[in-house]
């Protein structure tokens, strides 16, 4: 069966070039970079090069890069490592559409006495920057706002937000997991103090991530131990994965233009094609400010898990913000924060492309999805009611 993988915001395939450069570090090059002998020396050099490649992708200096185990670790380290430095300040600002790595942590901190302002978004998933300005107080310890939303692909104006936050002298963290590798980022140009991201969203393996910490930012480590990462994250460096991530970031930098042209073209073709072929379909999120690879669509009066399973039977891998797919009973907090009606939220499907997709993939989805929606609407009790009601008008 043909496989069409369009769930790249969940995870990506490891690029063959990445896997290739990692291999020697599992047998010949197994040294610990901290060791004084030559086995340590031979891996030390490669890890330095990898750090440079990672820094280059986001316009940072190598010494501002801290390797972590995943995006969640980066988010936790940034938020908790900042709060520890401002014990007198008990207020955090974030948004209602953050990834659980930030959202759940904020809820956790709220239970422990912090006041958390969750900024709202409009129907298109956009922030109101006046609400941010009004929320900042002398008691604010940190602002954490994601760069791009994992479910809708909507990007926030991080540059402008950075300036607002900086003008009040408050540390600013952004969860960049979905943005890095998909849109150009330059830490020299924007005022972000910390940015976290993850390897497995950019064709490196799972189990490696990065926390960028701008020079001069107050930070306390989450993992206390050895001197690794200049004391900002204890624990022996995960050399094979660091090398792999270095390669992945180098490739991502090369592919940025392709991502923003060919991938965007395929995404637009998919979106337009589905809107034309399937009636009562909505696009979730601001189409103007959006990652080039992501589209979230809602097919009214059907439920997302059913769509996903029928797609999966045809080899198509996508995801949904419906309640049933997550094991929780309520649809995605992101779509609810946007005020997407329940009729649409339960039937939301996210397609997230990568450079490994082809136009044939898109044609295949355009051919296979419409009959699936038609079949499920035939089973749905609300569809006929809706058709009846609209034909009376």
């Amino acid at each position, binding site marked *: 069966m043909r496989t069409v993988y369009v769930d790249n915001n969940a995870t990506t395939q490891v690029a063959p070039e990445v896997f290739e450069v990692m291999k020697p570090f599992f047998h010949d090059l197994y040294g610990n970079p901290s060791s004084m002998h030559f086995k340590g020396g031979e891996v030390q050099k490669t890890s330095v090069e990898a750090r440079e490649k990672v820094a280059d992708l986001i316009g940072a200096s190598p010494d501002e890069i801290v390797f972590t185990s995943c995006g969640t670790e980066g988010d936790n380290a940034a938020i908790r490592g900042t709060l520890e430095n401002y014990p007198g300040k008990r207020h955090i600002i974030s948004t209602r559409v953050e990834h659980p790595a930030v959202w759940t942590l904020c809820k956790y901190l709220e239970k422990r006495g912090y006041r958390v302002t969750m900024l709202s978004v409009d129907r298109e998933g956009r922030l109101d920057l006046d609400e941010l300005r009004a929320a900042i107080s002398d008691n604010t310890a940190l602002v954490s706002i994601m760069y791009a939303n994992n479910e809708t692909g909507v990007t926030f104006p991080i540059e402008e937000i950075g300036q607002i936050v900086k003008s009040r002298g408050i540390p600013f963290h952004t969860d960049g997991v979905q943005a890095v590798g998909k849109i150009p980022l330059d830490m020299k140009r924007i005022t972000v103090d910390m940015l976290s991201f993850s390897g497995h969203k950019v064709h490196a393996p799972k189990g490696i991530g990065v926390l960028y910490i701008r020079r001069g930012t107050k930070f306390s480590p989450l993992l206390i131990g050895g001197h690794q990462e200049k004391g900002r994250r204890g624990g022996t460096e995960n050399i094979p994965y660091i090398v792999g991530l270095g390669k992945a970031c180098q490739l991502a930098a090369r592919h940025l233009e392709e991502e923003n042209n060919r991938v965007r073209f395929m995404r637009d073709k998919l979106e337009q094609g589905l809107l034309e072929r399937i009636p009562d379909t909505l696009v979730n999120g601001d189409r103007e400010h959006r990652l080039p690879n992501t589209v979230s669509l809602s097919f009214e*009066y*059907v*439920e*997302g*898990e*059913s769509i996903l*399973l*029928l797609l999966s*039977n045809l080899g198509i891998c996508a995801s949904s913000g*419906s*309640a*049933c*797919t997550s*094991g*929780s*009973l*309520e*649809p995605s907090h992101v779509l609810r924060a946007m005020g997407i009606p*329940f*009729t649409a939220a*339960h039937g939301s499907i996210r397609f997230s492309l990568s450079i490994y997709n082809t136009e044939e993939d898109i044609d295949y989805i355009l051919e296979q999805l419409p009959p699936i929606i038609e079949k499920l609407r*035939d*089973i*749905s*009790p*609300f569809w*006929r009611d809706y058709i009846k009601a609209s034909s009376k008008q």
Partner: protein
Amino acid sequence: MWDYTEKVKDHFVNPRNVGEIDDPDGIGEVGSLACGDALRLSFKLDEDRRINDVKFKTFGCASAIASSSALTELVKGKTLEQAEKITNNDIAKYLGGLPEEKMHCSVMGREALAAAIANCRGEEREKEEFEIVCNCFGISDREIERAVKENNLHTVEQVTHYTKAGGGCEGCHPKIRDIIAKVWGEKEETPVLAKPAKGKKLTNIQRMRLIEETLEREIKPALRQDGGDLELIDIEGSRVIVALRGTCSFCPSADFTLKQYVEAKLKEFVTDDITVEVEE
């Protein structure tokens, strides 16, 4: 990904009896778009007052569609009296089981059937007094009580899996806990299973009662899930002698289960010196 049985997948991909009956003898509708699943069940009776045609329409996930399809197959040819005996467990069993988090799909089937039968008889549904406990999903105390009783539920999490109640803002969790306590009231009040404080010695009678209780409440239900069982033969001091029944009697890992599970549970709930032996 959910671990659905082949039967669930089959009924999802090829649902039986989809549609709506024009001029039905009974029609029942439960759930809503907001809740994420809904089922409309309609049927027609033949001259012997047996259900001879039944159709469904469902909005929901794969297991909701499969449960509805299974329900229509189960009620076909039955009288109303026979049909109303169908429980949500019958629906789950027909499908070879459902993931626990999806049991509410089978409950939805049962609720729709009850509503359709009531409609057929011209009764007003839910004449009894009820109070909405879970505002997020609109679940009443009656529905929770029934699910707790019929499915032997003991935790809020289980109630959420079976009825959805408590799966939203979680504000009703204390009320759900109260309902569970009320249903199992008599049992929960007798603190038989409370291990006495350290140093306090159990009398022989107390020890034997505690062993029996632990076997009944903690151990046997778990063994029965895999088709196994055991019987208490004798208690001699701290030696508990049992006989293996069901699949346990020929299970190659029965020794392991006996030591790692049965004995461990008894040590946990009764006293540390308990050993378990199989009857010679």
